[in-house]
């Protein structure tokens, strides 16, 4: 059977559960909004933030809230041994990895549909860029975060302190991506054209390619009991 079909079945199952329960989505959107509100209060309500600070605030909210979704996607597979059932089926570990990555990517995107408007409402009055300028940056970070996060959450899901281990392992790995994203976002928020951000976007794309390949190759070792 074709890999695409298998990925589609796995993705459809996860999204159906998520849309039914809305556990990850609600917690990601709520937690991210909470971070934005707290940072808005800490900054002083009504006080201006420059593009660099705004970019940092946006990515702190997105990255921290996205970790909640990552942990949940694999926790669900561990319940009742479903991950073993997947490994017993003719699905390859690579197909499971791609499906989980797409689930995480979709969840991040949906959470950002809430968080970016909230960010603009709270901080956007002083920022120049239209939200659409952020789109390529958001997509690249989502991809890099999802590919890396899926691998790390598969590793940490097998441990007792999953919720602690996941961010400890993940954040150092995505540090280069986050730093590039903050720089690119600050340029976008300062109304620079997309071509002026290529110095950040190109290494971000390279990060995504490298971590997708590494995740795909390493995932079979991360997901198995032995």
């Amino acid at each position, binding site marked *: 059977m074709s890999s695409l079909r298998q990925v589609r*079945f796995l993705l459809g199952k996860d999204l159906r559960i998520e849309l039914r329960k809305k556990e990850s989505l609600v917690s990601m959107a709520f937690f991210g909004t909470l971070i934005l509100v707290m940072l808005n209060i800490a900054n002083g309500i009504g006080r201006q933030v420059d593009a660099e600070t705004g970019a940092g605030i946006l990515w702190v909210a997105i990255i921290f809230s996205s970790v909640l979704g990552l942990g949940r996607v694999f926790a669900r597979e561990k319940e009742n*041994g479903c991950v073993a059932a997947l490994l017993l089926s003719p699905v390859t570990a690579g197909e499971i990895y791609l499906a989980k990555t797409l689930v995480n990517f979709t969840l991040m995107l949906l959470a950002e549909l809430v968080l970016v408007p909230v960010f603009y409402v709270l901080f956007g009055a002083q920022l120049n860029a239209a939200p659409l300028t952020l789109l390529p940056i958001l997509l690249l970070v989502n991809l890099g975060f999802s590919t890396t996060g899926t691998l790390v959450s598969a590793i940490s899901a097998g441990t007792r302190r999953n919720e602690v281990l996941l961010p400890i392992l993940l954040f150092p790995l995505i540090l280069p991506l986050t730093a590039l994203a903050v720089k690119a976002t600050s340029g976008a928020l300062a109304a620079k054209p997309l071509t002026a951000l290529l110095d950040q976007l190109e290494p971000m794309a390279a990060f995504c390619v490298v971590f997708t390949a590494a995740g795909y190759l390493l995932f079979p070792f991360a997901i*198995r009991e032995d």
Partner: protein
Amino acid sequence: MRLRPKNTCRTKRKPKTSVSDQPPFLSISGLRKSYGGREALRGIDLDLQRGEFLCLFGPNGAGKSTLLKIVATLLRPSAGQVNLLDYDLQEHPEQYRAQLGMVSHQSFVYQDLSVLENLEFYAALYGVKQPRERSLELLEQVNLLDCCDMLAANLSRGMQQRLTIARALVNDPTLLLLDEPYTGLDEHAASVLRDQLQLLHSRKRTIIMVTHNLRRGMESATRLGILTRGELVYLEPKKNIDQAGFEKLYFQHLETV
């Protein structure tokens, strides 16, 4: 001292691994598994023909579940080989796994999907031609058709176990692995399982069951095995020994462990 049954030819040699001269359906040779320094399996050799029903008994920690997990591809062996027909476990894992069904300690069902959605999902993964029809057929066999729209989380334990049985059969497996399948089953679920096993056996499906329940194990099996300390110390066709004799032999083995 290793104990021997009456009426059987247990000597210092290993148990005869096959009852036929035909090429085996499932062939396990020299299988070893170590966890750190501890050997869970110490050189298992076993051949099964198509349609055989092997029931493996043994005390806790004997290596029964480890053996099943290796055959199911969930664990990698430290040494040795497992072949199903012409499919080498290492070389053709997907084709090999497409032939398998497993009932384990865990239900393998998603609590947030309905009964029918669970079966349809697994049927689709196995490439079943008509996943919905196959799922409904199985739900009827395990008496869950009326609950097909219920979330798995809302099923009683007995109903969940019947769903587990249906899930394991969704791909019509040619090799069925059962790890303590009767544990915690209510009488209804146990009779559903027994009926399904008899049906599969009559259709020449090969079955390996691991259990502590001697009565349940012996009522359907065609071969009996005892695994202790990672070694297959007894393996004979059921016809070679009566139930009382086997029970005596089994408890003697337990005492030595």
